[in-house]
């Protein structure tokens, strides 16, 4: 059993970074995630594990610091919230193109624009569909608890290095701010330079006489070359879709209806299941944990056994598009969302189920 602590989601991310053997954190303050850097600065990991923690002048700078660190094989991360993540899209696109591993935590707040500082899930499209320019994806993990905020830091780094790709933890202001019991994983030592050079032969670490010089770039001016780059990326994304889908089903065995929800909405739906079942409505929950790769096959399988699905999101209807793409037109699929920082109450969700699916 690992060490137990009562922590905020944001603090759990920071503690997990130190324990995962992270080499560098680069960030810029923004509500509701500033506790990540505050916690790291207070812990001073640069005096213990040697992890660098640096406050950058902007999110543009912090994501490009990640690009620099990742290009040399270092284990680097940043965190921000929606407006800051918008500024980072440039760097994320470059890292996807140059095939660099990095972890980006988005503690989502309501938008568009400056929006609000309250929780939201309105960055689903931006996270899952690319966000920046060009044909790319990143692996997106959606935690529904403070425990998963910690666990997914380790999972995220593992996946980032396994596939040499940026990975995003798509959280929200509520999961970032709320306190829960966390079982922390045991610390993993940071890699030595020799281990890094052995594990990351692709990284720009200084050219020895024994190999060619390494160039980290996303540029290939030759169209045939750039198409090859794109084909290689697409092949990688297909492999990720094959191997890395994660999801959870709750109370689906006898379910006639299913909520489909990720992150905080999935937590709310667990209470809604209880309320609905007290009324005699047999409802379950399908929770995608990886938003890319989306659990298409699994949700299609489940759709054959139920009368309808209610996609519950704190946005105007984003993941529902992927649900519909996975299932097609054979099933009634409705959306229920609150947005702008409003968190739906469990009984609101049940009412929406009754009105939109059962009564409708």
């Amino acid at each position: 059993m690992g060490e137990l602590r009562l922590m905020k989601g944001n603090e759990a991310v920071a503690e997990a970074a130190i324990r995962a053997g992270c080499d560098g954190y680069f960030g810029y303050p923004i509500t509701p995630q500033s506790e990540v850097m505050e916690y790291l600065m207070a812990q001073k990991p640069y005096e213990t594990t040697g992890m660098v923690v640096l406050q950058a002048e902007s999110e543009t700078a912090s994501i490009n610091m990640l690009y620099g660190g990742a290009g040399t094989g270092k284990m680097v991360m940043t965190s921000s919230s929606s407006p800051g993540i918008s500024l980072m899209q440039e760097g994320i696109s470059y890292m996807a193109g140059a095939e660099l591993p990095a972890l980006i935590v988005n503690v989502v707040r309501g938008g568009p624009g400056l929006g609000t500082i309250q929780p939201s899930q309105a960055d689903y499209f931006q996270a899952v569909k690319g966000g920046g320019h060009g044909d790319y994806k990143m692996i997106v993990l959606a935690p529904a608890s403070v425990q998963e905020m910690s666990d997914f830091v380790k999972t995220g780094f593992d996946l980032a290095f396994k596939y040499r790709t940026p990975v995003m933890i798509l959280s929200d202001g509520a999961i970032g701010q709320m306190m829960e019991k966390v079982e922390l994983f045991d610390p993993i030592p940071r890699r030595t330079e020799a281990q890094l050079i052995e594990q990351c032969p692709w990284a720009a670490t200084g050219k020895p006489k024994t190999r060619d010089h390494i160039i980290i770039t996303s540029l290939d001016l030759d169209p045939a070359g750039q198409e090859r780059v794109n084909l290689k990326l697409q092949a990688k994304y297909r492999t990720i879709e094959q191997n890395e889908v994660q999801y959870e089903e709750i109370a689906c065995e006898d379910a006639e209806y299913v909520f489909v929800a990720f992150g905080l909405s999935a937590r709310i739906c667990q209470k809604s299941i209880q309320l609905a079942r007290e009324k005699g409505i047999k409802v379950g929950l399908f929770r995608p944990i990886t938003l890319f790769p989306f659990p298409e096959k699994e949700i299609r399988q489940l759709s054959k056994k139920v009368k309808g699905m209610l996609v519950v999101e704190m946005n105007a209807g984003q993941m529902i598009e992927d649900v519909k793409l996975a299932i097609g037109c054979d099933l009634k699929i409705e959306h229920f969302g609150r947005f702008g920082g409003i968190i739906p109450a469990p009984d609101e969700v049940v009412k929406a189920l009754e009105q939109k699916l059962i009564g409708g």
Partner: protein
Amino acid sequence: MNEQYNHPEMQTAENLVYKRTDLLVDRPLSYCPGCGHGTAHRMLMEVIEELNAQDNTIGVSPVGCSVLAYDFLNIDMLGAAHGRAPALATAIKRMWPERYVFTYQGDGDLAAIGTAETIHACNRGENITIIFINNGIYGMTGGQMAPTTLPGMRSSTSPYGRDTHIMGHPLRITELIAQLPGTYYVTRQSVHTPGNVRKTKKAIRKAFDIQAAKKGLSFIEIVSNCNSGWKMTPVQSNKWMEENMFPYYPLGDIKVDGALIEKKAPAPEKE
């Protein structure tokens, strides 16, 4: 033509007075004939060779004419997004403190889109070297107005000359960053004559020695010609540079050992 010079029997050790450094990749440069980039590349690589630091140097190239610098410099390199090279170099140096880390950037990259990254890397006193090629124009995209374009100077986006009332003033970013306590060595050089080439190489060597001594950030501006963008012959462009660029961007050290050099104010703008 080649046969005239190809006399292997003459290429003996005692006859060898000059050799291209092995740290330049043997391939044609993508720069226009007459451009200063090639010489700046060579000085940089000669310094790294002298320091025996090929395996201990990580460079960052920009977006601009020198976007492909990594193809010519035979060391490990990262190609940054436009203007972001100092952010990359910051992280690299912080996590590889024993490596020499440099950025190589043009004036559009460093003094327009990357102004924030430049100023903040300088202000934090990152222990890196910034090589700044200032030719007063966006060369690669076809000769548009740059932050450093002189008043009255014609470019494809200031076809009637830069009107400072409408288009703002040329930015002396080197003087600006010299004011920051984080910068240790700030100098402005050129590579248009053999004497200036030697001074530039000395400046680069000094900057790398400062890195090794962990004393802080060195910033080397190289005022350069852009004969294509300025629509001149290489010889004309060097003359024009001496007559027009140098009065506004005077050569010489601006800050040495962390202390500003007292000098008379550079020439005011000519309208």
